[in-house]
């Protein structure tokens, strides 16, 4: 199998999931898509080593996340140009519930949000989350339960039971 086919398979098999996770982490579909594309481009740039990693998807996700974080500073400057040339609207194709949830995620602290997305959306274990974000497992557990509580509070819908309840993260 050629490296091209190998990469294409990897890309097509994971890009939707990674994009979804980054949208939830960053709260902006356009930005997330751009960061993810850029991360995959960089993966191809050094495909020799990335393809041999235990978890290339994790590598791409981390790179995409860093790309976004490092571009935050430029964000204000870019906003103007972005409005003029950029995507007409955020999250155009999403259901109201999805939009509400993404908006709610955006309101909880960043580290908690990232942990929640990795655990609940990406389906990683606490240990895997810890490895990806570079924090001890205990810290990740705390971020998860605080983040979840914060999310419940932000969502704050009447009828949502157990909003105060502590979810146990194994």
């Amino acid at each position, binding site marked *: 199998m050629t490296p091209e086919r190998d990469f294409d398979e990897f890309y097509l098999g994971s890009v939707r999931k990674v994009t979804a996770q980054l949208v939830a982490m960053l709260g902006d579909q356009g930005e997330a898509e751009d960061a993810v594309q850029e991360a995959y481009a960089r993966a191809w740039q050094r495909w020799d080593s990335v393809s041999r990693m235990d978890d290339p998807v994790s590598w791409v996700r981390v790179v995409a996340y860093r790309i976004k974080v490092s571009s935050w500073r430029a964000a204000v400057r870019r906003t103007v140009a972005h409005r003029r040339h950029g995507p007409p609207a955020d999250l155009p194709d999403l259901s109201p519930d999805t939009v509400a949830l993404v908006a709610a995620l955006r309101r909880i602290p960043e580290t908690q949000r990232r942990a929640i997305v990795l655990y609940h*959306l990406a389906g990683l274990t606490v240990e895997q989350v810890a490895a990806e974000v570079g924090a001890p497992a205990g810290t990740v557990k705390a971020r998860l339960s605080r983040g979840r509580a914060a999310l419940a509070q932000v969502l704050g819908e009447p009828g949502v039971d157990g909003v105060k309840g502590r979810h146990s993260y194994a």
Partner: protein
Amino acid sequence: MHDVIDERLARLGGSLEAAAEVRPPTLVRSRGEEIRSAHRRRVMAVTATSAAVAILGVGSLAFRTGSGHRGGTISPGVSVSSSASAAVAAPSSGATTPSGSTTASAEPVVVIDVKQDTMRVYDKSGQIVKTVPVTAGKPGYPSPVGVFTVKAKQRQATVSSNTIGIDSYSLRIDWVVELDAGGPWLYAMPFFDGTFGKENRTHGHIGMNTESAQWLYDHVAVGDRVQIQ
């Protein structure tokens, strides 16, 4: 404890996945190869103009192309009869137009039906030569309708954007037929394979498979009329 939030988070992944816009791997790879070249130019968004459209998922035809081409003479036969959605349309100059090729036929040579997702190509005597399945602007990004004139053809075009913020994209598209008056471009969209004739998927431009795009490129002349309905 079974919790509503868990369920909602579980569903969130799926619906975000469904909405994710995915560029074709070839484009991602060519971008990766571009990074390799140490020189990273930052392309000004302004020079992107007509560019930033379509495959980048950026912008729609709401902002008009053509401001990049000044000077030269205004092509004869550019009568703008486009409908409201195609709007103002300053007639673009023929800066990129080869001279002597403005033998526009009165009748449209190409008729694109954005509802049926088909493109019919006629010869000068009005006989259908070919019917091509296409994809047009998706809901929210309708392709402009009306009668347009082929302004220029490009074997290959580069579109760029700096929406990444730190780097610029520069991507190549093939077999491009440009229309005047803010009309869409017609070109090969191999990355939307599977939607041709079935689904509108673009941000306003008209896409078809590479073979058809090449065929169209070879068959239309600058000045030909294209009707989009």
